[in-house]
């Protein structure tokens, strides 16, 4: 029973439920009550055993705690009393309803645990929480941090480790974000209009979470795979309401992102070799790719075709699908991938997309065409510090036989920030280039 219980999920459910009952201005209080419920569990369960329905127990304890905290706040500060009273009244009603249903009048948590009617709160609360955390009035990093804290149940330290940020900086960002939401007095309940207005921001945050987990940046490995898993879980949650909250086109965008994430995640088991060196697509053992993940990705890609819009996620998922269905590297449909990059660069004209497009062009038209395409964008200040730009130049130079240039490029790549598997890969390629150079000299 305790093994089935996921504390991160329960924490998120409690925060979402309490925020629905109390209003988004009490989000901090909801978090505090949820945290206190976990403390109570830690203090009590070793003595009295794990309750029969632990998540119902935690939710009930958190509701009671929220009432205490509300009363404390009202005593301490002369609040906008009508608002505070209303929140207290709503919570009182909920607590009383739980207690009544369990046949006990004193809202005893162990009685609440016997409560059959107390099922976990509906996904709707979590969905609404996600759209609150990703509200466009918040800066992008704040949306990410708040989503991880309230919807994924991450701790401040875990968020800091995932993004290589300082804990106090993350904590501050969260405090500021909650203050902004409070001041804007955002409605918690999600309407179709809210959904439409905030969906782009939600998808952006999910993709960012996924990418942060997927790209092997430095940082805690375990936390990183959690990020990928959470991004996909939240995507599933987003796809669930179907046409109730969103239009066909909005649902199609959600499916496109899910397709992209599943297709990318399928390659995770094959991306790093036994020697902890990053493996390129050409080198990966494709039998390690997760077939069920690919199948789910292709299903979502089908569902994504139901609308009449084309989002960047559609195009990127199309590219990922080209790789996923190629049994061998040599079977890759590069002309189609290059076409898709031509579309993508128009929709998303970023230096990274331009770099990937150049790589696709080199597979279709040869390394010299690829080099020309990369050189055309190499002046971009962002790319100049990106190891993959220099690594790509190095690979293409090797293919054209320019070993000296390749060596210099790999050395330049090693000057850039990268993770350990990436660094080991670059060192390996530099050694290859140097071996070829000295072999050429001996000739």
């Amino acid at each position, binding site marked *: 029973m*305790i*093994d089935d*219980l*996921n*504390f*991160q999920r*329960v*924490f998120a459910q409690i925060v979402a439920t309490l925020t629905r009952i109390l209003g988004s201005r009490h989000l901090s209080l909801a978090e505090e009550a949820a*945290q206190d419920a*976990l*403390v109570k*569990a*830690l*203090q*009590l*369960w*070793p*003595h*009295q055993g*794990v309750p029969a329905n632990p998540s119902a127990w935690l939710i009930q304890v958190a509701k009671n705690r929220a009432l205490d905290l509300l009363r404390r706040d009202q005593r301490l500060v002369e609040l906008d009393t009508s608002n505070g009273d209303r929140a207290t009244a709503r919570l009182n009603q909920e607590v009383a309803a739980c207690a009544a249903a369990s046949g006990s009048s004193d809202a005893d948590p162990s009685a609440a645990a016997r409560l059959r009617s107390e099922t976990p709160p509906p996904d709707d609360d979590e969905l609404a929480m996600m759209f609150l955390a990703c509200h466009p009035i918040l800066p992008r990093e704040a949306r990410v941090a708040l989503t991880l804290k309230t919807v994924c*149940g*991450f*701790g*401040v*330290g*875990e968020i800091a480790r995932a993004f290589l940020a300082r804990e106090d900086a993350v904590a501050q960002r969260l405090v500021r974000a909650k203050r902004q939401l409070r001041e804007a007095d955002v409605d918690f309940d999600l309407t179709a209009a809210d959904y439409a207005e905030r969906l782009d921001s939600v998808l952006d945050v999910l993709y960012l979470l996924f990418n942060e987990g997927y790209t092997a940046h430095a940082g805690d490995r375990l936390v990183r795979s959690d990020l990928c898993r959470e991004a996909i879980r939240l995507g599933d949650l987003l796809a669930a309401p179907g046409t109730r909250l969103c239009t066909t086109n909005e649902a199609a965008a959600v499916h496109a992102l899910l397709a992209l994430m599943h297709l990318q995640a399928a390659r995770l088991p094959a991306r790093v070799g036994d020697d902890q060196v990053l493996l390129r697509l050409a080198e990966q053992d494709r039998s390690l790719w997760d077939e069920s993940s690919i199948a789910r990705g292709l299903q979502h890609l089908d569902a994504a075709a139901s609308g009449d819009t084309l989002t960047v996620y559609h195009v990127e998922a199309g590219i990922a699908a080209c790789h996923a269905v190629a049994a061998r590297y040599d079977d890759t449909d590069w002309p189609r991938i290059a076409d898709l990059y031509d579309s993508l660069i128009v929709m998303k004209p970023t230096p990274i997309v331009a770099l990937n497009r150049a790589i696709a062009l080199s597979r279709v038209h040869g390394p010299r065409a690829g080099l020309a395409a990369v050189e055309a964008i190499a002046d971009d200040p962002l790319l100049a510090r990106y190891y993959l730009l220099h690594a790509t130049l190095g690979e293409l130079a090797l293919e054209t036989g320019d070993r000296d240039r390749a060596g210099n490029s790999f050395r330049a790549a090693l000057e850039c920030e990268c993770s350990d598997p990436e660094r080991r890969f670059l060192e390996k390629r530099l050694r290859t280039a140097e071996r070829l150079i000295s072999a050429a000299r001996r000739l």
Partner: protein
Amino acid sequence: MPKYALMLRENGTAFAGLSPADFQVIIKRYGAWRDELQRAGRFAGGHKLRDGDGRVMRRNSSKIVVTDGPFTEGKEVIGGLFVVEAASYDEAVSIANDCPHLDYGSIEVREVEVTRP
């Protein structure tokens, strides 16, 4: 077999930095620790004491003075106790050594005295 009280001391701020995942890990370990003691027949009860609400009583000349407390702010107070059976202090300490309470508080181990003249 002699009984030992493991008095669990903690201060009110010890839990602030724990994430839901941390709670999950500690509670799971706690369950395993207690299960193992029970299987070995060494677990002899325990209680969690309610936070915050204590009374301290003292006789002051003729009358008894009751004050609120002890308060958890800042200093460690006893938040609960376990009673375990152990052959010696060494064994009691080794039992307490695996208790997850040490992740966020301290433990005072005291033998329960049973002296028969």
